[in-house]
């Protein structure tokens, strides 16, 4: 049994230490946002956040995750309470088939946590490891900018303002 921290909760996982995180998330924890694309760490659709950094879960064995915090798209928001990054992708209609989008959102989220207002160039460079065959790249870039603005707005909202002052 291994203890795995996912979306703020401890999970007891009965899996071999060399099991890829993606399999544990989908098969054991039934968290299906992260997708199996190539299984080689080349397409980005399996991306999740580990300790604030975007990580390819299909080539990340369980043994590497001891004591680390895993965040999946389910941990950012839900259909009833969308996270800014999800709302932005919907408002920009940045998904067509949508298979790559969960991974795109996770790496974009990690970028926005590090850089509040990334340039086009930074977004392109950061998301370069992600493949999208539908060709919604320009909408994805707009969505990341939109999410950045939404996060600003959220930071200024009354609930957070008290804390800030």
């Amino acid at each position, binding site marked *: 049994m291994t203890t795995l921290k996912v979306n703020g909760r401890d999970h007891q996982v009965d899996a071999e*230490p*060399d099991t890829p995180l993606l399999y544990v998330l989908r098969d054991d924890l039934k968290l299906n946002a992260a997708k199996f694309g190539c299984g*080689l760490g*080349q397409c980005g659709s399996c991306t999740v956040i580990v300790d604030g950094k975007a990580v390819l879960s299909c080539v990340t*064995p369980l043994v590497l995750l001891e004591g680390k915090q895993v965040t999946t798209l389910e941990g950012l928001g839900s259909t009833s309470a969308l996270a800014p990054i999800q709302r932005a992708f919907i408002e920009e209609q940045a998904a067509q088939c949508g298979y790559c989008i969960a991974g795109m959102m996770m790496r974009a989220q990690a970028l926005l946590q590090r850089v509040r207002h990334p340039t086009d160039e930074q977004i*392109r460079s950061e998301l370069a490891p992600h493949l999208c065959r539908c060709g919604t790249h320009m909408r994805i870039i707009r969505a990341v900018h939109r999410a950045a603005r939404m996060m600003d707005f959220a930071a200024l909202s009354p609930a957070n303002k008290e804390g800030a002052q």
Partner: protein
Amino acid sequence: MKKSGIIGGVVAVLLVGGAAAAVAIAWRPAIAATDPAAEQSFDPAQVKRGRELAALGNCNSCHTVRGGKNFAGGLPVPTPFGAVFSSNITPDPETGIGRWPEAAFRRAMRSGVDREGRHLYPTFPYDHLTNVSDDDDRALYAFLMTREPVHAPARSNQLSFPFDHRVVIAGWKLLFLRAGAYKPDTTKSPEWNRGAYLVEGLAHCGACHTPRNALGAEQTTASFAGGDVDNWKAYAINAQSPAPVPWDADALFTYLRDGFHPDHGTARGPMAEVVSNLSAVPASDVRAIATYMADVFGKPSPVRKLQGETVLAQAKQGAAPPPESEGGKIYAAACAGCHESSRPPPYGGIHLGLSTAISSPDPRNLANIVLAGVVPIEGERSPIMPGFAAVMNDRQVAVLLEYLRSRFRGHPAWHDLEKTIADARRTQTAYVQNSAGPTNAPADPAQRDKP
């Protein structure tokens, strides 16, 4: 470098530099500036030849910076004596070489002196470029003078005393610059001689692959015995090569031309730029370089040959023993999916028994590649590997590297592995995360075959 070596070196440089100054050897006249030549005054065929020669000389590696304009300079080149910044070699009249007549360009290539008569630091590899023929210098000049002029003033070098005084360079040249055209070896084939001319001259392979002495000059007694470049090891490319499978001319040609060979793997780090450039030059020149270098590597001993064959046979078998250690488990999930797949790149990588990075006595290249991965080149078919810096800490990388070393080579473990990994993390991941452009500088495919 030992302290006594540094002091000895400083004294020697001062003595030699001083003596040189005393007899006015250091003085070089200025060559009168001319108006920039019109682009139309150059023969397009010569400009095209110059483009190929510039690629063979890997000029863009130092004279173009990431995100900067072509050949506008500004790259800091770290040396044990401080940083030297590469210069602007575009035809800009104020900040480039626009007002240099061809004679001034040729003098710079031959003896490392700029138009005004100032000695240039030997980070500009004129100890090799001195061999370049008049015709080739003329073509290179034609190519550079027809590039887009870029206004980019030179950045000041950051050198410690006494190396910040250019008179010291005159002393260095007395000691280490052997000027003169390449003399063909009549006992060898024309192809071999062509390769020798390029390798020892314009391509300046030894600048990275030969170790340097206390004064920063290549050790003539240790040609191609391996050197350092940025935070990478430039492997020994002579009989001391750590490659598990011995190199031959055919393998060298494929590797240098395509950047990949199935028995050796892919070129990465600073070598990626070299093979990128070599994909844009005549195949005959790459073939010549391979022929000459195969001779430098030498014929492998029967033992070495057998070792190579054994490794190749193991690689074909594939199937790994069940990994029990922590390193083995990391390997099974993170590496084996590609490296034991027998698929060609980009869907698979070489069997790691063939990896020179793992058999090298220096673990830096392996640490760099595990952390930063291999970033694909935009718009080109190229190898790809994800980096693991985000998910592995230094200890975990060390555990993996130790596993790879013992499983695939059985060589003695590396020393100070965690420090190497921490250094690699600082230099490589900062580089990858902060850079906007590709990690490699490809020869722009859109520009190929144009003058």
